[in-house]
């Protein structure tokens, strides 16, 4: 489906196009909110808020060529707002439910599926245990696949800084993966 057409139809108020839009981007938005919150229900509510915000501001959407980076930036900003509000108003109970996030395996055989699933869970836990800066770098560069230039524009930092941060974050993630595989624990820093 052509993204430019889909965005145009959404702007014109076509409900069917809007539904297709939600279906197309729900996974990506939910992935971003999950990375920030780590709690499936909270991530789901936050993803819904992102779509509601998008719906309310669809007259101000950017063009299709730069839409995905823009969508990621909007989602990230909403997540950061949410985390700030949450910090200002701590929840009555804090449930750590990283393992509850749906990480469906994609392996071909049961063995490879099991190995892939184990890898995915370990890497996901390692991502969740990273500090905020490193986690953002992993999310934007490695998970969402933004370019260094797009990340630099989004974060307002020089490209060189993004590159060095990205390298550091990847090494930190690899070390945490190894620590988890050795049976160690890595606590969330953020």
């Amino acid at each position, binding site marked *: 489906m052509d993204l430019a057409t889909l965005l145009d139809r959404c702007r014109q108020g076509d409900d069917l196009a809007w539904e297709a839009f939600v279906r197309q981007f729900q996974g990506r938005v939910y992935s971003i909110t999950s990375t920030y919150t780590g709690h499936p229900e909270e991530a789901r509510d936050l993803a819904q808020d992102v779509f509601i915000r998008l719906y*309310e501001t669809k007259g101000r959407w950017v063009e299709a060529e730069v839409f995905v980076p823009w969508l990621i930036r909007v989602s990230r900003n909403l997540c950061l*707002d949410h985390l700030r509000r949450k910090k200002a108003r701590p929840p009555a109970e804090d449930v750590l439910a990283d393992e509850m996030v749906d990480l469906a395996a994609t392996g071909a055989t049961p063995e490879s599926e099991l190995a892939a699933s184990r890898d995915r869970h370990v890497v996901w836990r390692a991502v969740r245990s990273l500090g905020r800066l490193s986690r953002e770098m992993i999310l934007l560069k490695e998970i969402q696949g933004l370019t260094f230039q797009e990340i630099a524009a989004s974060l307002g930092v020089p490209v060189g800084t993004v590159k060095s941060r990205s390298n550091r974050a990847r090494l930190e993630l690899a070390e945490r993966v190894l620590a988890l595989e050795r049976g160690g624990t890595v606590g969330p820093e953020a």
Partner: protein
Amino acid sequence: MKAVMNCQDFDRRLDALLDAACAENEWREAEAHLAGCPRCRALLEGAAGRGPVLDEAGQASLTASVMRKTGGDPCGSARDRLCGFADGTLEAFERDLVAGHVSNCGRCAALADALARSAAVLPSFATLTPPEPFVSDVLSATSFRPAEPSVLGRLGEWLGRAAIRPRFSLEVAYVCTLLLAIVFGNPVKAFKETASRAEAYAQPRVEVAVGRIAAPLAAARATGETVVGKTVGRLSAAASAAPAPSGFLPMARRWWETGVVERLRSMLDAAAGWVRSAEELANDLAARLLGKQPPAARGPGEPPPAAVR
């Protein structure tokens, strides 16, 4: 006599022997020496590259030992390039350097492996499946919602979001202070003008009050001085005149002689002094309040000044 080569001679000629740059007789002497000297045979084999070699563990140990004593731990440099190595973006020379290190360093090899596995897994997190029914919830949440909320609605939402921030109370206090300053002016300026306004308010009233005090004081002083002068004159005249047999004058003469008159006079002088002091005090007060020089103190015979205005 046939020359015999010893071990020292062999060491000195070793380079020439290896380079085949020695004379024939030297070769013969060297061969004769080598036949009976296992030490020099081993030396020649080693120098020619045919000696015993280190196994892998020995090589690794030697490398590590040399690095410790020279360049330090190479893992830091390797880590700087591990991401590029895992991504396959290093140039061939750099890749070979890192590959050489990784093949001999278990820690960096494990890290490179974890990097590669993470890089393979991470893109799969780009989309995750939200719990159902997500789409229908979003659609129902947006179906009756205006696409563009009104300005008031946006303002309300913004206020709602802002109000839960910890800094909100501080920001509101700051804005309110600014508004008060805009509406009512600069409070510091008002305080600065207070002194001049108070002075302008008080000056005429102080002048009137001082005038009211000074006039009766001056009148009282003049009256007192007149009365004292007349009394003293009468008493002096009576004292110098012949004593009368009876009446006021003998009694006055007796008072004069016994010092009563003198005490009366001193009392009157003191009263006149009090009046003068009160007058000077009033003048001084007026001068302090109005910032004018007080009039010079005057003697008992000087005329009273006009009331301060």
